[in-house]
């Protein structure tokens, strides 16, 4: 009896539950030393998308706000990065990331103030419409290169007294900077999950009426969550712009907002690891269907199997990869009893 209690205690300790995460971080950290260039680049892209998906998880999973326009903030930060990158030689660009993130946060605060007046289905469509509006601002006006997109002048580096500390021009350094940011975003969101703020957001998801009756100004909480989610998406947008050295309106298109929602539901809504797993699953799926080695000439039509896979995934595992073990156990239990 005593031992059992001890075992439960061990299992409940965060150190014990955290070990798969620690393993994942170690694997990601070692990967550039063993993987080929193509795969390292792919993992890098996926890590950026993971940050993007994590930022949306705060809205969709925690607060219960399904935003279909999250790509807007990703794109706004990417454009801000490109527009603000100075044309001269590269001095310290430590301010470029905060500037990009601040722009995205500001945009999220303004757009959120409008969108959060709508509820439920209206919220989904209004966020979509605002994201489209942002898309047209960058696509139609001469503000930032129009539909042709925009090149970054210089890739940023963090220097102090002439000594380069973090040089994002070096792919290896950039990889590790992204990994550090991913871990940071994950940690911040995990901390929010345990905080009073996070619990208030979960309360809003469960029953907003009740939260208001309990004295919470839910609008303020939701706007704070929306702004924070926009800012975190901004980190991903900044990394995307620096990685490619190029931004185009396509990164704000509604397909992007759809894709990041898809990552969430693939991984499993309501958990942080689900968002990261979903990002990896999505990229793998896309790479698989685009692979000419496997599908030959049909790889050109990769969207067809992707669309079918999306439908199948949502239909068959509505709770995502995270819930798959439970789902399988439930599926097997009656079989075992019968046998």
């Amino acid at each position: 009896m005593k031992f059992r209690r001890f075992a439960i205690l061990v299992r409940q300790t965060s150190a014990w539950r955290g070990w798969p995460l620690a393993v994942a971080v170690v694997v990601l950290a070692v990967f550039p030393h063993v993987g080929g260039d193509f795969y390292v680049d792919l993992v890098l892209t996926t890590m950026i998308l993971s940050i993007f998906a994590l930022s949306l998880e705060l809205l969709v999973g925690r607060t219960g706000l399904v935003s279909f326009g999250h790509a807007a903030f990703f794109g706004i930060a990417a454009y801000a990065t490109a527009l603000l990158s100075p044309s001269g030689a590269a001095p310290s660009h430590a301010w470029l990331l905060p500037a990009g993130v601040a722009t995205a946060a500001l945009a999220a605060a303004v757009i959120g103030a409008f969108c959060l007046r709508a509820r439920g289905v209206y919220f989904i469509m209004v966020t979509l419409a605002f994201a489209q509006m942002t898309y047209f601002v960058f696509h139609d006006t001469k503000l930032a290169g129009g539909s042709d997109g925009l090149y970054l002048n210089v890739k940023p580096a963090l220097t102090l007294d002439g000594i380069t500390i973090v040089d994002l021009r070096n792919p290896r350094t950039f990889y590790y900077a992204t990994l550090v940011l991913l871990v940071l975003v994950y940690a911040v969101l995990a901390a929010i999950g345990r905080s009073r703020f996070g619990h208030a957001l979960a309360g809003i998801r469960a029953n907003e009426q009740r939260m208001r009756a309990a004295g919470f100004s839910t609008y303020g909480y939701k706007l704070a969550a929306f702004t924070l989610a926009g800012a975190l998406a901004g980190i991903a947008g900044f990394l995307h712009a620096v990685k490619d050295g190029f931004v185009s309106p396509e990164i704000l298109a509604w397909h992007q907002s759809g894709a990041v929602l898809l990552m969430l539901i693939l991984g499993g809504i309501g958990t942080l690891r689900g968002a990261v797993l979903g990002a990896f699953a999505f990229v793998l799926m896309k790479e698989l269907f685009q692979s000419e080695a496997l599908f030959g000439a049909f790889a050109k039509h990769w969207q067809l199997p992707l669309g079918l896979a999306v439908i199948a995934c949502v239909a068959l595992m509505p709770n995502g990869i995270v819930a798959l073990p439970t789902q399988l156990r439930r599926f097997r239990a009656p079989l075992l009893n019968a046998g």
Partner: protein
Amino acid sequence: MDFAVFLVQCLNAVQYGLLLFLVASGLTLIFGILGVINLAHGSFYMIGAYLAYALAPLAAAHSGGGFPAALAIGVVLSIVFGYVLEWVFVSYLYEREHLQQVLMTYGLILVFEELRSIALGDDVHGVAVPEWLAGSVPLGGVMTYPVYRLFMSGVCLLVALALYAVIARTRVGMAIRAGATNREMAQALGVDIRLLYRIVFAAGVALAVFAGMLAAPVTSVYPGMGNQVLIVSFVVVVIGGIGSIRGALLASLLVGFVDTFGNVLVPQIAGVLVYVLMAAILLWRPEGLFRTG
């Protein structure tokens, strides 16, 4: 702006608005009654346009006399298609959350676009205006206006009136309104709700396909054309209020005018104007102009 130009732009705005109404009314019906967010609705418009392209030889037969026949074939095909699609796919969405509906119909868009690409390729195609509608009427001193666009507006208006008559005056329309207000109660009183849903969905598909077929000679036919219409239709539904046909009509005309005159007066920011309109209306009325249910 001189008066003839103003008149031409007004006609364009009405024509665009009424065309939007055909797509948006289906969207708002499916939304208000079935409770499904159907992202694939734009694809039906795209399918309609490509159908018009595929049926172009028929439409051109007998010096354009085949055009009504082509339209009729398109409508019949789309009703069958919508009926079957509701049966095998959409009926599984009713019990699901909105997010899952969004993603599954998003998957459907990818499937439809890619099937279109496999069947007909990715090229842009023009579709000829039928011969008997090819002329233009004089307007004021120097301006002329194409007959086909007037024809489009007229047909759209007829469809809108017919839709209103069906919903307000017939037994089916009564069942639709009852189903929208209270699904369980309507079912308990003997309305076959599953059949009703199938009919509403098929009608929605037919409206979008019909709009695509009508628009093909004016807009030409290109990949991704459905997505653009889908987003604007969403704006129309949000402005008009979910489930409201009246709201959809008013909102589509409003969007038609704002977009058309925006393109003439302030072309630099025309793309954004419709969304500004939506934001303004939502500030005023967060649930759209006419909310039902």
